[in-house]
């Protein structure tokens, strides 16, 4: 009976949208580094930790207002408790575990094992409870029981919680974790050295009345102080044997220090590239709009140089590390990733719909561009894909791969040759106007239906007359270009006027067109 009710409730939770939404919200807040409020939450929690430690330090020699203590002991602890419980809740999906167990049992024609499901859930939760970070969280809540004065020292565990919120600390820990074996070896070596030297010095000194090392604790203390090359001088060996032990341990101490320094330095050196890459990924993820360029070819370099004028950030994906370094040396945001791999996008977590203006495929091979296009099309159908085409016979394949705009350099050169051979001056004029190398440019102005009268009236304005040419209006609905439009030509919302004029004059025209009121 209970098991049926539990399964029913699990199915209900699994499909109950407000519950799932709430769970996703808290997951994002606590775990998702890309969630927009995550950073604010982390800063808030770090603020609480620092405040808590400040109150502890202040209370040592000063009277703390009662309200502060209440805040520290109850409010902060309660917030940490809530956070701990939320993490406990989020760690595993209990309803899913029950459903999986239920469906598995049904499939195998077995009665539903309620105890099996509960055991799995229990093991999942216990795994969380005994994880190092959860233990720290739990200890940080302990000052909640402020009546036990000793437990106030647990406030210091709150400092350890900083590892949860500060990414750089997490990074430090992951770097050191990569050298687990070396660190473990170092610790074992140090412990053995301390143990051996403590026993030796105790044996040599303990019975000598002139020596201050009288107990085993004194011996251990002396060994630790000496092996780490501190040497306070409060305990010194006086016997010959003791001094020989001291010489040995001083030499070993230098080895310990050197070994530990080299471990840290080599860990950082090995992870340096990874750290840099993560920094670049952080910068990329923070971008609101960007162009994504796949492949850093000479053409890509040139395209990026031109696109920089639009002040939209550009991110380059390139799998050749040398090209990545070249791009970075040019001040570009370049990531060492294969643009044709789905793994790349799952790792980088691009928001194609909102973050990426367009994807430009500029690999030097049609095969790579097609493969990349198919990968991106698996992720989104809506993003605009632009690609360079190396060989005209592959044009259809690029279209089939979902590329919207294709540029073939060979065809372009061929077509241009025809114009340049017949009308070289006209070609130069068009080239100059398009390349925006002169103050006169050809530009687009987006119109709406209400602008019609104002548009044609402005053209007669002395400021624009004879100095501002409308080459035509492109109707986005009819997909037709109306050259040299007559004032009777209607204008629909979304139509685009192609104009030729001085750049400043175009801006002025645009501004007057959008201004309300009489001209």
């Amino acid at each position, binding site marked *: 009976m209970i098991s049926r009710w539990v399964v029913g409730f699990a199915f209900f939770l699994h499909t109950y949208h407000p519950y799932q939404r709430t769970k996703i919200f808290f997951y994002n807040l606590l775990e998702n580094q890309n969630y927009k409020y995550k950073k604010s939450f982390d800063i808030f929690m770090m603020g609480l930790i620092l405040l808590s430690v400040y109150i502890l330090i202040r209370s040592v020699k000063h009277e703390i207002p009662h309200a502060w203590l209440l805040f520290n002991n109850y409010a902060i602890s309660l917030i940490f408790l809530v956070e701990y419980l939320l993490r406990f809740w989020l760690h595993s999906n209990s309803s899913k575990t029950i459903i999986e167990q239920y469906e598995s049992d049904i499939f195998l024609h077995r009665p539903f094992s309620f105890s099996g499901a509960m055991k799995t859930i229990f093991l999942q939760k216990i795994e969380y409870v005994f994880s190092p970070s959860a233990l720290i969280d739990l200890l940080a809540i302990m000052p909640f029981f402020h009546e036990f004065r000793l437990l106030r020292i647990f406030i210091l565990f709150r400092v350890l919680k900083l590892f949860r919120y500060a990414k750089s600390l997490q990074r430090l820990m992951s770097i050191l974790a990569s050298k687990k074996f070396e660190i473990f070896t170092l610790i074992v070596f140090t412990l053995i050295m301390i143990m051996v030297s403590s026993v030796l010095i105790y044996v040599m000194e303990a019975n000598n009345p002139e020596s201050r090392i009288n107990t085993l604790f004194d011996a251990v203390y002396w060994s630790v102080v000496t092996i780490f090359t501190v040497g306070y001088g409060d305990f010194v060996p006086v016997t010959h044997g003791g001094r020989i032990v001291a010489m040995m341990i001083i030499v070993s101490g230098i080895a310990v220090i050197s070994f530990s320094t080299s471990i840290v330095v080599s860990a950082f050196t090995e992870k340096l590239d990874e750290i840099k890459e993560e920094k670049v990924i952080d910068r990329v993820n923070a971008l609101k709009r960007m162009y994504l360029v796949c492949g850093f070819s*000479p*053409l890509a370099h*040139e*395209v990026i*140089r*031109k*696109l920089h004028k*639009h002040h939209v950030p550009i991110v380059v994906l390139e799998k050749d590390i040398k090209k990545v370094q070249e791009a970075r040396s040019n001040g570009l945001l370049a990531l060492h990733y294969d643009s044709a791999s789905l793994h790349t996008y799952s790792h980088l977590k691009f928001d194609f719909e909102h973050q990426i203006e*367009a994807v*430009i495929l500029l690999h030097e091979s049609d095969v790579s561009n097609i493969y990349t296009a198919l990968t991106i099309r698996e992720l989104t159908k809506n993003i605009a894909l*632009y690609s*360079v085409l190396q060989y*005209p016979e592959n044009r259809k394949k690029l279209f089939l791969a979902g590329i919207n*705009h294709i*540029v073939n*350099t*060979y*065809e*372009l*050169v*061929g*077509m*241009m*040759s*025809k114009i*340049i*051979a*017949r*009308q*070289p*001056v*006209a*070609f*130069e*004029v*068009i080239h*100059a*106007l*398009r*390349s925006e190398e*002169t*103050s*006169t440019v*050809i*530009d*687009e102005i987006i119109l709406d239906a209400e602008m019609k009268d104002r548009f044609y009236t402005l053209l007669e304005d002395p400021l624009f007359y*004879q*100095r*501002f*040419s409308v*080459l035509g209006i*492109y109707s986005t609905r009819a997909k037709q*270009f109306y*050259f*040299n439009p007559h004032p009777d030509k209607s204008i629909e919302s979304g139509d*685009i006027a*192609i104009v*030729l*004029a*001085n750049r400043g004059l175009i801006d002025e025209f645009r501004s007057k067109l959008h201004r309300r009121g009489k001209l």
Partner: protein
Amino acid sequence: MKPRCAAIFGYNEYSKQIVKQITSTFDNVGVFVIDDVEFLEAKNDGINAGRFDLSDDWQSIEALFDVESLVVFCALSDDAENVFLTISLRATFEKLFIIALAQDNESMMKMKSASADKVMPILQIAANVIHDILSKPIMTQVLHDVLYEDSPLNIMEIEVGDTSPFNGLYLHDLHFKRDFDLILLAIVDQEMGTTFSFASKGHNHHIDAGDILVFMGYTDKLNVIKQWNDGVSV
């Protein structure tokens, strides 16, 4: 004199596209190659191909074409060889119209120094088009159709002759849009040797013989103004 013949040096993907595009507009098109592989490939493609080397022996060119009405495309795959070819041709034929392909801006400057009349920097051309498609897609499409596709709209350059009705007139006295249904894109003042668009600064330019007017409009209207300029009554 309008060129009637075209010689293309090199037979690669660029040359193939150039041949494909210009064959219909020239009376005689020939391809000249250095190596045997390109020569055989061109012959297999049915191209009128000849051999050349980078010495100063251009007799084969002079035998096949009237150099006065010849346009040359220097389209060798190697930029250094292309520069050498350009400078060699210029050294021999002072008035030859030379169009050279350059892989990038650096080579473009060298081609210009080697006295090519027009240089097509391939990387920049492709980059410009990609940039334009991204930033001004409609304008790019319209201009592409006008320039390269079989469109009723076209561009035309007209040189003002001594007997042209435009000779001696001021720009502001002419209403090309109203009277000819054409848009004047630019005037090239041969005396000043610079290109400028009338729209940019509103100069009331005095049109002289030798100036070149660049128009955009429907082909029939462009032909009308060409005839008008040539002094044919329309």
